[in-house]
């Protein structure tokens, strides 16, 4: 029986699952919308793995993304890693001489600088989500254009409209004004792509030495308009990996494989956890002025984890069978 490894990236907008084989090939991948229900989507994803691949032998599991801790707990992951390390690992696997990674996801945008195969510098957007996937999503919706057509429309324009890109609120009002003036849709969309790239390079990419080869990954890489805007500004080709939308999951899958090789066993609970009922309860602890928001996760009738309290009172009392409110 062949060995497989699973990488899962639970992001703000999408949950991605990949299955890798022993030679690091992607055997199967799935891009699901998280829709604020990480546990349900995770279970749905696992069900699909079973349906399409049968009961395969998964030797190791890794989780990443902003929901990595939660997903790691539920699955019994071997590795729980931040997105930056994972994107670097997968990009290096895609192109070993990579020097710069541009990653734009749902709520984060990152730049990772790599020299001689190691991460030497990185940056993430600081406070504002302007110029990330969810911003584009929203603007596409507002313009009445499917996000899938967004990039193609941008490419049709050769007369971009300048749109303020530093702040999502300003960008939106600027865009509305330009619409009212009668600019056509393609020009506005192309202008928006340029604004996003300008904002990215001035904020996230500020002070970084962006050398080629450059890889562009994350969900937004599907947008040809953004790719073209990057290439115009940086004056060089930007490479998009075939599996750009699941690169985080690929990276953590590779890390899980390495970890399992080292410890020779996996802590993965098996694909049948998609049948188990998970419940999440939250409460505000009123025992002190911190008013911590405590979360409890139940697996069937057992308490799987509690977290969110600053003092550790709830986290540590997990064996105590009394449940929260």
């Amino acid at each position, binding site marked *: 029986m062949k060995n497989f490894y699973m990488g899962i990236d639970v992001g703000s907008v999408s949950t991605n699952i990949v299955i890798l084989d022993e030679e690091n090939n992607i055997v199967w991948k799935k891009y699901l919308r998280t829709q604020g229900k990480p546990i349900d989507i995770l279970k749905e994803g696992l069900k699909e793995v079973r349906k399409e691949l049968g009961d395969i032998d998964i030797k190791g599991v890794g989780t990443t993304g*902003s929901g990595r801790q939660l997903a790691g707990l539920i699955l019994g992951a071997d590795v729980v*890693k*931040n*997105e*930056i*390390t994972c994107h670097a*690992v997968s990009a290096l696997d895609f192109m070993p001489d990579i020097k710069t990674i541009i990653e734009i996801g749902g709520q*984060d945008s990152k730049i990772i600088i790599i020299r*001689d*195969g*190691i*991460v*030497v*510098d*990185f*940056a*993430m957007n*600081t*406070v504002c989500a302007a110029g990330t996937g969810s911003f584009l999503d929203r603007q596409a919706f507002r313009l009445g254009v499917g996000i899938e057509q967004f990039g193609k429309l941008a490419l049709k324009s050769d007369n971009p409209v300048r749109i303020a890109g530093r702040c999502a609120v300003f960008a939106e009002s600027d865009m509305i004004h330009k619409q009212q003036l009668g600019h056509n849709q393609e020009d506005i969309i192309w202008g928006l792509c340029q604004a996003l790239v300008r904002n990215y390079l001035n904020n996230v990419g500020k*002070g970084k030495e962006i050398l080629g080869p450059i890889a562009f990954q994350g969900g937004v890489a599907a947008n040809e308009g953004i790719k073209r805007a990057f290439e115009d500004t940086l004056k060089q080709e930007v490479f998009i990996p075939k599996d750009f939308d699941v690169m985080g999951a690929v990276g953590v899958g590779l890390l899980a494989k*390495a*970890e399992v090789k*080292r410890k020779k066993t996996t802590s993965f609970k098996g694909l049948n956890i998609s049948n188990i009922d998970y419940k999440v309860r939250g409460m505000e602890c009123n025992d*002190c*002025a*911190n*008013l*911590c928001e405590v979360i409890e996760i139940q697996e069937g009738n057992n308490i799987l984890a509690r977290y969110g309290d600053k003092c550790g009172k709830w986290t540590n009392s997990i064996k105590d069978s009394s449940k929260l409110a």
Partner: protein
Amino acid sequence: MCKIGIPRGMFFYDYFPLWKEFFQELGIEIIVSSKTNKEILNLGISSCVDEACLPVKIFHGHVEYLKDKVDYIFIPRIMSIDRMEYCCPKVLGLPDMIRYSIGKLPPIIDTQINLRKSNNKYKKSIYDTGKLLGKDFWEIKKAYKKAEKSYERYIYLLNKGVVPIEAIKIYDKVFKDINYSSEHNELTIMVVGHSYSIYDEYLNMNLISKLMSNNIKVITPEMINKEKINRYSNKLPKRMFWTHGKRIVGSAFSLIEEQKIDGIIYLSSFGCGMDSVLVDLVERKAIKAEIPFTLLTLDEQTGEAGVNTRIEAFIDMMKWRNRDENNISAFR
């Protein structure tokens, strides 16, 4: 006995040992507001003007917390604590800001400290504060002498490598000569920023403790001695006239040039005017010296995922770099 409230915010971590000893020696009871928590944050945000930075808002919350529990609140007007230098405008106007934002306050003791031109006025400020509380010259003099001693012990600990959040707990206990620098740590990271952001553990989501629990040695600007800070900040083409700015730049420059750190985490409050200059100065210097640098900008968010991801990735990167230098496979 009269009670004085000291809000646990702004310059608290710079001067608390001095203030506490002074008032206690005068026979006055001290009440310190509790550590920042959600209640204090909410109180602060609802009473403070909206454009202020988070530490100022939190300070408002601490005053709200104290106002019904004490007879006086101590909010010194710290204008300048060194020759030809100034503090942030929000520190200069802090007592007024509080007075006009919060209602039903007990009297505020707003001792003015202005040493910009000379140190002469300093003694007068101390006596005026003591007199206000009905104490005579000799009592005040004796109390201040003692306060100075306890402040010196605090500074001594910081220079020995004790992080301020620890030092503030132990400076007045009997202690042996602790030598923290002998402990073995895999990495040394400088956490830089204004004292009121880097030591408020609620505001920064326990940044320093998180690093320390990863077996990382943490150095902060307050732990670098003054002489060194002056020497290195003087390397700037123009004199830095903000005291805290000078401390941040001088301490970061000294640690970078002396190659004592593996990385720098700059913690900044959203909207800090000083930081808009300081972050860039420190970052450029770090890039030149090839020392990893990252900036964390905080406001009132309490979801920790964003901060944790950045810290984790930063630590990973430094470990990855170190392993590579030691010729161990970089992948694992």
